[in-house]
């Protein structure tokens, strides 16, 4: 007897997880996909955001997702600052390839170690009223712990999609990724646009961090679990396509969930990266890429 309800539950869990993975990858989608900056430090900002939320949640009892939202301006400014350093040290001199990568790697390392020093390696979790509760629809259990972050993640994706498509800055960001000179001629300063984009990318990462710590406890080295996922999703979805990111994230979430349920969890993560390597080998522009 084929376990239909197990399959259904696994699919739903995968979809919910996919919504969160999409939020996690939005930053990379913008920064790497549109700005062409391989920001390896993105997962560190994810975890940094998670810890910021943890501090506020344990100290003041603020709902984690709300705290995440409150922190977005802070992280936006942080992102803008990081970009300025990156631009001044590398982009301007035209040496981005090697040194930029190393710069971000060093940044990743510094952030992770600083968190270790400050918070130690104990697992940190947050408290919220809806954690631990779930409801059922037709035999499929849905946990609020997954549902709420997923909905927020979807909202973020939609918001960013609209922003990029409709607003001035959004379209400028799309433009700067395609043709910098033309943008200049239209009167917008590419450096300024890129600063805004980078800031948004980091802000997205920090909010995604709030979602992550709601789902599962984190430690400083949790960032390494997401490096592969973020880039796998961005590449699979197609560089520069927010919609593509969402689809790829859902694919990854469902694959991980199905592998976990039916074949044993050991291989689910390796399989995800297998998808990445295959995508790079077979269709590097991704599903929806340009």
């Amino acid at each position, binding site marked *: 007897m084929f376990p239909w309800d*197990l399959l259904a539950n*696994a699919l739903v869990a995968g979809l919910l997880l996919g919504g969160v993975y999409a939020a996690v990858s939005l930053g990379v989608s913008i920064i790497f996909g549109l700005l062409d900056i391989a920001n390896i430090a993105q997962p560190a900002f994810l975890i940094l955001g998670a810890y910021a939320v943890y501090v506020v949640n344990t100290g003041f009892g603020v709902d984690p997702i709300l705290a995440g939202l409150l922190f977005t301006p802070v992280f936006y400014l942080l992102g803008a600052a990081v970009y300025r350093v990156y631009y001044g040290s590398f982009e301007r001199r035209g040496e981005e390839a090697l040194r930029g990568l190393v710069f971000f790697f060093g940044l990743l390392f510094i952030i992770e170690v600083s968190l270790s020093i400050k918070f130690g*390696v104990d697992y940190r979790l947050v408290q919220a009223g809806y954690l631990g509760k*779930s409801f059922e629809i037709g035999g499929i259990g849905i946990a609020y*712990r997954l549902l709420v972050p997923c909905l927020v993640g979807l909202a973020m994706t939609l918001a960013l999609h609209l922003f990029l498509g409709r607003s001035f800055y959004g379209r400028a960001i799309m433009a700067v990724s395609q043709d910098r000179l033309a943008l200049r001629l239209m009167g917008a300063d590419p450096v300024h646009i890129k600063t805004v984009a980078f800031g948004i990318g980091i802000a997205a990462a920090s909010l995604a961090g709030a979602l992550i710590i709601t789902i*599962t406890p984190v430690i400083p080295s*949790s960032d390494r679990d997401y490096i592969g996922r973020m880039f796998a999703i961005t590449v699979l979805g197609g560089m520069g396509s927010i919609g593509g990111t969402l689809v790829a994230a859902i694919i990854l979430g469902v694959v991980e*969930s199905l592998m*976990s349920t039916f074949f044993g969890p050991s291989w689910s993560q390796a399989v995800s990266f297998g998808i990445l390597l295959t995508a790079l080998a077979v269709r590097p522009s991704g599903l929806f890429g340009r």
Partner: protein
Amino acid sequence: MRQPWRRSFITGALAGALTVVLVLTTAFVALAADPIKIGFGMALTGGLSANGKPALLAIQIWKDDINKKGGLLGRQVELVFYDDQTNPATVPGIYTKLLDVDKVDLIISGYGTNLIAPLLPIAIERKLTLMGMFGLANNEKYQYPNYFQIQPAGPDPQISTAIGFFELAAKQTPKPQTVALVGADAEYPQNALVGARDLVKKFGFKTLYDKTYPPNTVDYTPIVRAIKATNADIVFVASYPPDSVGMLRAAHEVGLQPKIFGGGMVGLMFTSVMTSMGSALNGVVNYDFWAPEPAFMAIPGIKEFLKDYQARAEKAGVDPLGYYLPPYSYALMQVLGQAVEGTKGLDQQKIADYIRATEFNTIVGKVKFGKNGEWAKGRTLMVQYQKIQGSSVDQFRGPGKKVVLWPDEFKSGSIIYPYAAALK
């Protein structure tokens, strides 16, 4: 002056006597001032530092206690230690420095199976006595006679975690029939699962699920759902702190309610986890080594130690109650110290022979070592979390919330069976 030679003789004799007295005094003072150095690496950073740091604090408390009483063999004790970063690759370098540069007199191990493993060959090569701090079955391959382990796993370390769990299960009426086994892809959980499988065979249970998961799994719901789908009576989980929390949370969300749940979930006994999980822990039957129940609190010396530890814990940024590893770390040092005093010296072989032959009185009770340096009789406890309400830390200070079910000598309460009954 009648006989000048007589005066010079007396002067000479006096001078000689004075010199001898001076030399002896200086030598004595030098010897007394010359401290006994005990060296070790410890996980102060990295994955195991959550236990390594409290262990260090306990060792330091022992050093202060022993020095207050005059030290060992009349000499003060000095600790020389380095951070092994939970990385086995640092161990050879650290211990070579301790032995050849710092010239320590005695060594003990760091915390954890993986950090003890690279140390054994060094101890064997240099013929040193090695006290091991919480490692599972490290000596099985080498069978080195001068190794002693303070973890109360007993002569069969692999089944030590699970034996109490399955024995309790087998005793219930009606006897449960089916088992689900799950654990993390990591050292300790894998060992525990091997032992669990042996026990399942021994007690005649039927295995319906037996899988592992990678340690950085984000969401445990699919795993728990798959287990629930099997409807197994017994669910045995071997996990490290993050997955223990993840599995337990997922179990509540999915509504997993086997007849007995838990087993080898590391981390549930950490104060930070107990306070954040609160009543979600109720009903879980888990392994443990120590509990603030009457049988343990009555042992001489433990109350003073805990008072000392808890006073210093907050400043040190470690587990505030110290109800897991610290008493054993202190006991380890007690064994070593008593052996040094007992053999009246620092001869490694004599100390090892003494430890092997003696039953020690420590703050965790009587300690006697047997085959391969493990405890002659295993004493891994099975506890059940009961009647926890809310998340205040004070409810965990005293007895009653983490009841000892097994073994009988330390039993402090009865099991609430099935698991679901404890959730009300």
